């Protein structure tokens, strides 16, 4: 559309043109005149930022896609001890002692594990695949089972797919030298029982179920049975702002500090011990001395507040934090 066309349009359809122009004018006027009040940005916390790849994020968070958003801790499975395997053997043994029915066959088997003993070191050298040696060993005692058993074990390696969680698993394994040691520790046991060991057909299912204990997720210092999406900052478990704010709010309800002279900057602290129900374990113990009459009355007012406002309603999961802490009462910018 050239400018002549535009002019022509304006000339021929004045009504439409003015209508459009007016609408634009009104909208513009509204835009500027109604936005007189600027937006107030909410105060936000500082968040440390690292630049890492997407892949790394998923590894670090080690979350499950369908996990709970609010989970406090990362999913972290316990690295199992090999109890089940050993126990089965052991139990069978003890029981066999009393029954002594089908004893003969098992006896030869124990010898094999003994022979394999030397083997563990090798797997250790092969290291990356630690679990395998373990798995191979256990299956040995029960002959029928072993054939099947190795398969599930071998399947594990299959789990190493490009999938993120799998890669996490993969990463974890190399990280865990202790495992070989565990296997080493475990191996000695079978020999102890070898003479008593007996094959029990009823236990086949147990044997089949034997898996190498593995840790499913990397992160998380503590065990947590619930899958999670991962915690955003990874510090949620350490986030104690909530109980602090709660305590401040609650104690402030009872605190009526004496009005200070303009330049006074009183600071008084107490050692406070709380029980799980939020009540005071004992009277708050002032820290330091109150040298002036004013500081004395300031401290008295704070002490009264701590006592008067108990019991406190604080989140139970942070009890470790608030069981014993030190409230510090002071003037900030209140008095000018």
């Amino acid at each position, binding site marked *: 559309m050239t400018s002549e066309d535009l002019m022509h349009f304006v000339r021929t359809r004045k009504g439409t043109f003015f209508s459009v122009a007016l609408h634009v004018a009104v909208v513009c006027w509204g835009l500027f005149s109604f936005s007189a009040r600027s937006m107030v940005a909410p105060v936000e916390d500082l968040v440390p930022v690292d630049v890492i790849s997407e892949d790394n994020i998923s590894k670090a968070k080690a979350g499950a896609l369908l996990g709970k958003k609010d989970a406090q801790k990362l999913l972290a499975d316990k690295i199992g001890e090999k109890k089940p395997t050993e126990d089965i053997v052991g139990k069978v043994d003890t029981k066999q002692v009393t029954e002594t029915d089908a004893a003969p066959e098992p006896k030869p088997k124990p010898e094999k594990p003994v022979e394999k003993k030397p083997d563990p070191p090798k797997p250790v050298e092969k290291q990356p695949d630690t679990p395998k040696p373990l798995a191979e060993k256990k299956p040995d005692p029960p002959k029928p089972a072993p054939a099947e058993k190795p398969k599930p074990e071998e399947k594990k390696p299959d789990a190493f797919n490009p999938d993120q969680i799998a890669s996490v698993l993969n*990463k974890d394994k190399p990280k865990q030298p202790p495992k070989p040691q565990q296997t080493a520790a475990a191996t000695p046991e079978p020999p102890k029982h070898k003479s008593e060991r007996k094959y029990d057909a009823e236990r086949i299912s147990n044997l089949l179920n034997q898996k190498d204990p593995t840790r499913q997720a990397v992160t998380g210092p503590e065990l947590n049975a619930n899958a999670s999406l991962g915690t955003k900052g*990874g510090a949620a478990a*350490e986030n104690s702002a909530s109980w602090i704010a709660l305590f401040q709010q609650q104690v*402030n309800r009872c*605190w009526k500090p004496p009005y200070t*002279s303009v330049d006074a900057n009183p600071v008084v602290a107490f050692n406070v011990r709380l029980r799980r129900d939020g009540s005071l374990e004992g009277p708050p113990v002032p820290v330091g001395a109150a040298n002036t009459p004013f500081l004395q009355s300031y401290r008295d007012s704070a002490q*009264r507040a701590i006592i008067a406002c108990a019991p406190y309603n604080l989140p139970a999961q942070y009890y470790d934090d608030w069981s014993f*802490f*030190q409230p510090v*009462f002071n003037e900030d910018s209140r008095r000018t």
Partner: protein
Amino acid sequence: MNNSSELRRSLISPTRRELIAGAVALGAAGLGAPRSALAQKQVPIQPGEFAPIPIAIPPFVPGGAGDGDVANGIAQVINNNLKRSGLFAPVDPAAFPERISNFDAPPQLASWRPLNLQGIVTGRATRQPDGRLKAEFRLWDPVSGQQRTGQQYVTAPEYWRRIAHIISDQIYTAMLGEKGYFDSRVVFVDESGPSERRVKRLALMDQDGANVRYLTRGADLVLTPRFSPSSQEITYMEFGQGDPRVYLFNIETGQREIVGNFPGMSFSPRFSPDGQRIILSLQQGGNSNLFVMDLRSRSTTRLTDTPAIDTSPCYSPDGSQICFESDRGGKPQIYVMSANGGNAQRISFGEGSYSTPVWSPRGDYIAFTKQGGGQFAIGIMKTDGSGERILTAGFHNEGPTFSPNGRVLMFFRDPGGTAGPSLYSIDVSGRFEQKVPTPGYASDPAWSPLLS
């Protein structure tokens, strides 16, 4: 495919992977360790908005049949004092959960708890067989149930208000850790009559406006009364037949005398902190200079000698320095110099002009009247001139005087027109301004030191 990608990955990024694993492990360790180390976490608690301290002062228990009025009166005066300070919020008696009948026993703490009080006062007033009044009080801590302070006083029955003021001061001190100011008086100029023929009399009252006494008859104009630290004497300026002169007036005896024998006009007198000297301005030609007179030896000493108007001198509480107003720099400003004279240092640098400086008894502030922009404001500044704060502004506020504890200022406000001036008080935060009741118009207040 799987294998190859796996292989590639392990070849390419083992270090990065380790880095992340390491970082995660480090994070876990880092999070875990300080947690146990910081078992005793410091939690900062800051007060919210200022709120006056809630306190309950139920009527005192009458010791005998005829003591009811006094017992109620004492409690009322205490309530009024604490409330007027702005720092306390006495609870309405209608909210009291119990009637105190035994002054010696602690109140029923549980029933008072909902009021969230910081103190409960109980007391008893008894007329003794010898005709004197015995007043006792106890201040209870409503949380612990302990008695925080308690006293008993015996006096002539007519002084029951004074006892109430003293008890108020005791409560003030116990709760705030500072000296009170209730047991004090104020001298001021009482004004009556039409504005063109105003009668000005010297008057004396309790700080709460009660017990007004007139000290002069009003035949002559009186200005700028000031209290002696001894509390028995007032110095003021009076227009007599000749030039205005500075007088000394004894409250007890009613005697008065002219201070010094100066040629010309002498004005704006003030006592030294020890009460032994009077510092004043003396007009000399178009200028005025500061002089100090020793009341015992009657010797006078010149402190300033400038071709300017030096006036409104005031001693620091330790007597070592003097602040005064001078227009030597052009406009009236506040200067500070040694009590022996010498170089003066200007401390006020704001817009407008400053006058009537007065040093706080605490020594921390100098209060002043500031004129500018069509307003007369009352303000305070630190003694080095920093931290200036205007407490109240408007038309014609003037003449601040400090309470004995330096926490409250009294001044007068003259709206102009046909109305006359009134006294107001304001605390040094500027938060609690209120009118001081006087029988008529009043100006030029001066606070006494504590009586006891």
